[in-house]
């Protein structure tokens, strides 16, 4: 016979859900955090407010501004970011591909310069962890819902004579009605 859900068991789901929600929240926060970011003093762009092409802008969006916190080269107002945008444009004009330009910056700054970590090696963990947390959360939710439904459909765990008395009382009530 399946045991009926106790009041304590009925209180468990919200706690578990809280834990899962916290895990998902953390996973999201971890994705948004920069691995490590630099600088001391920064200077707004001076002579580098030059128009750049959409392609240059797209590449700049992939690169992290070296003197900012969690800001791309495309979005930053720092002087070095402006110079890097120009450098990207110059390299595009010189016929270099997007991969070559990204590789140019990676050779100098390492993977740190990429706003999104590469989808290779140990970096894969960063990409897979939120997905695994999401799948784990969904699986836990399905299991919990199943358990609640089973518990609701289960016969109460009570002596047969007590159940007979309850059934008789219910019948009498129906007859009176």
């Amino acid at each position, binding site marked *: 016979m399946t045991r009926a859900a106790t009041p304590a068991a009925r209180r468990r789901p919200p706690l578990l859900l809280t834990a899962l929600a916290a895990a998902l929240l*953390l996973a999201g*926060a971890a994705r948004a*955090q920069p691995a490590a970011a630099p600088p001391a003093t*920064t200077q707004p762009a001076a*002579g580098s407010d030059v128009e750049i092409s959409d392609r240059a802008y797209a590449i700049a969006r992939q690169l992290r501004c070296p003197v900012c916190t969690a800001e791309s080269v495309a979005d930053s107002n720092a*002087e070095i970011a402006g*110079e*890097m945008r120009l*450098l990207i444009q110059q390299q595009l004009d010189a016929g270099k591909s997007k991969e070559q330009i990204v590789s140019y*910056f990676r050779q100098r700054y390492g993977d740190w310069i990429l706003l999104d970590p590469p989808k290779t090696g140990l970096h894969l963990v960063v990409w897979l962890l939120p997905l695994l947390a999401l799948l784990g959360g969904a699986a836990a939710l399905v299991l919990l819902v199943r358990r609640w439904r089973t518990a609701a459909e289960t016969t109460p765990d009570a002596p047969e004579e007590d159940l007979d008395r309850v059934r008789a009382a219910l019948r009498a009530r129906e007859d009176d009605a």
Partner: protein
Amino acid sequence: MRRLIVVVAVVAVLAGLFLYGLFRGPPNRDVPSNLIGKPAPQFTLPLYERFQPKYGASFSVDAHKGTPMVINFWASWCNPCFDEAPLLERYYRQYRDRGVLFVGVQTQDRGKYDAGRQFIDRFGYTFPVGMDNDSSIGVEYALFGVPETYFVDRSGTVVYKQVGPVTPAVMDKELEAILR
């Protein structure tokens, strides 16, 4: 009851991590340099007028092969650069006779030639200083901010990178290291 304790413990750990992330303060800027142990990138730096009679119109790393070098990146708007400048000049005077060459690179400072000249005059720099007007040398050296200083040994290898202003302790240790 045991399950309740486990759940509470998990939530407490996660909440602790979350709060740590929120309140840990500004991230560490000490990102390891890709250049350490590698050849110092070659560059040609247009020099300020006062250095041209001795060093020519521009300074080239390749032209000084075999010379231990200290490459200092600075900008005219950067307060820590002002703080370290007297120390740099003092150490240059102390080590130049032992064959160490210092070079100052004004970067992230497009067009600020006058401010650069004032800076050089103020601190009486005697080592060559020039303007990296488009910050391309800064990118070659994977600069994160200013000031940053690179120590290059006789073989042309970058042996140390100082992020932030140099200190006497760093200068003593790293200058001896590049002279070995």
